[in-house]
């Protein structure tokens, strides 16, 4: 009885409801920006963690895995304490703006990217690294090539991070403030409708979210070819 028809949700989207479109655009915008930031920082970090030996490496890896589970409200609180008017970065007036959400979500995404990139690279053939060294690839060139060879893992890491942030509500709510027409995302809208007791609408929004996320996902999958020929069991 609570489950809306899939059609109902798509109907909402298709009807081009201006508010729904704006909310959806916000969700995508925040998630994509934060994932890109996290990827730009996290992929190199994951590679360094894999390729370098340093004291405490195992602890670093464990910490990174642990931070994947960072509760979104905690991230929200931390960023809040930085960006709020009384915080050290209060002067920029970033609180309750898209920028604040993106910062929070990037922080959420970062350990996911680092951990999963590490996890993927750690399984690469050791000879790949040696081959690159011996062929004289510079550090940057090695990195690029390793990422290309491990593109399944890297793509999976990025997709996972994207999925995580697009579906998270804590940081978006705390940092964006769920301001209508400005920082409201699908997830904060869902939270709002749920609090209103409008469960059906919530689920419909959830379906919209999944459809949108699936689109992004499928596109990226297609791009990196999750199943390169001859490298799969």
């Amino acid at each position: 009885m609570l489950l809306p028809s899939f059609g109902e949700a798509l109907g909402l989207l298709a009807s081009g409801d201006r508010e729904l479109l704006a909310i959806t655009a916000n969700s995508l915008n925040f998630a994509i920006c934060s994932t890109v930031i996290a990827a730009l920082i996290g992929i190199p970090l994951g590679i360094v963690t894999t390729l370098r030996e340093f004291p405490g490496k195992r602890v670093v890896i464990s910490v990174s895995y642990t931070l994947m589970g960072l509760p979104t409200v905690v991230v929200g609180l931390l960023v809040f304490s930085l960006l709020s008017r009384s915080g050290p970065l209060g002067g920029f007036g970033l609180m309750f703006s898209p920028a604040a959400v993106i910062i929070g979500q990037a922080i959420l995404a970062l350990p996911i990217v680092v951990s999963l990139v590490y996890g993927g690279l750690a399984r690469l053939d050791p000879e790949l690294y040696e081959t690159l060294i011996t062929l004289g690839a510079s550090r940057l060139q090695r990195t690029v090539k390793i990422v290309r060879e491990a593109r399944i893992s890297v793509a999976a890491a990025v997709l996972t991070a994207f999925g995580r942030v697009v579906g998270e509500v804590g940081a978006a709510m705390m940092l964006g403030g769920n301001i209508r027409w400005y920082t409201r995302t699908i997830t904060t809208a869902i939270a709002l409708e749920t609090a209103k007791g409008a469960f059906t609408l919530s689920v419909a929004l959830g379906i919209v979210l999944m459809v949108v996320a699936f689109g992004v996902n499928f596109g990226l999958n297609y791009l990196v070819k999750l199943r390169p020929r001859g490298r799969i069991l």
Partner: protein
Amino acid sequence: MSAALEISGLRFTYPDLDGARTPSGDLQPTVSIDELSVSAGEIAVLIGDNGSGKTTLLKLVAGLLTPDAGRIEMPFSQSRSHGSHGGAPAASSVTTSCAARGSAGGGLTAEFAAGFTGEFTDAAVLVHQKPYLFAENVFANVAYPLRIRKVARAEVHRRTLTALDTVGLKQLSGRWAPSLSGGEKQRAAIARALVLRPAVLVLDEPTSNIDYGSVRTIEAVLRELADSGVAVVVSTHNMASAYRLADCLVPLAAGRRQRLAVNLLRGRAVPSEDGHIGVFRTTYGPEVFCPAGWEGAGTAVVRMDDIILSTGEMVSSAQNRFRGTVVAVEPIEHDLFCVELDCGIPLSCSLTYRSVEELGIASGAAIHAAFKASAVKLY
């Protein structure tokens, strides 16, 4: 000839990352090479049993492993900095060891010290025993080292196709590399190293999965490369290939150089009048009788055991009889000695202590050496 690769006092042991898993009592270094030098234009061939340290030595030369002690110098390398890799815990001890030997090496000591952390990769390129091909097509694999060096497109194209042609893979250049057959992969990897024309080319069992006909092609390529001034270091289990290729044959056992147990003669087997017996004209001049039917072979191998010495002229069925002088007598192990002769061609043979005593063999003594034609193996 100037040495393109000089190794001295090299020691390496795999760090015991997980003591519980390695058998105890195996405390000697994995590789322990007191001296080895390979000149530009020379091919050095490492032979030895499985686990004797060939791959380890080659990786050390290629800078992929860091020696515990000793030095590896490549005076011709134009070292290019790629930053360090894998960390260099032993770097300081290496430098110390170099300093201790004073200026004996000359040349690139400073660059060398840095070299252990990955900087002479341009000089020494390694082709792995189980090559890793990138997940892209064959052409892109072979072109990769050129592309990262920003070589012009046309040049990349030309050199890549040449290299592919050299190893006989031109028609597969568009194929998805991971789907190649075992030998095709090995050849693609060789081509990928060839395009670089490095000062020192290091190949780990390059022909182990390559078909009989193509082995000869690869050998010819390596020889050609050497002739163009590259120092080539290969390991192999294919003795025929080793004999054919080696300017310097390096037997390894338990990571140490062993004494060579054969005489390796270069030259050419020529047609002989007598159909029962062949003739091998050595590069030193003198001819050696050998089995018939090997016309064209370029290498003759005579085991040191198969050479008989006597003080006077011998009458025997041994077709090859030489007069010469003893150059050196050296102990090999407990009861055995190695006697080096100059008979127009240099020959070494192994003798027991008793024989050395009986024949009164000493440096400078005149001597007769003999061996059967059938003791000569041609390659």
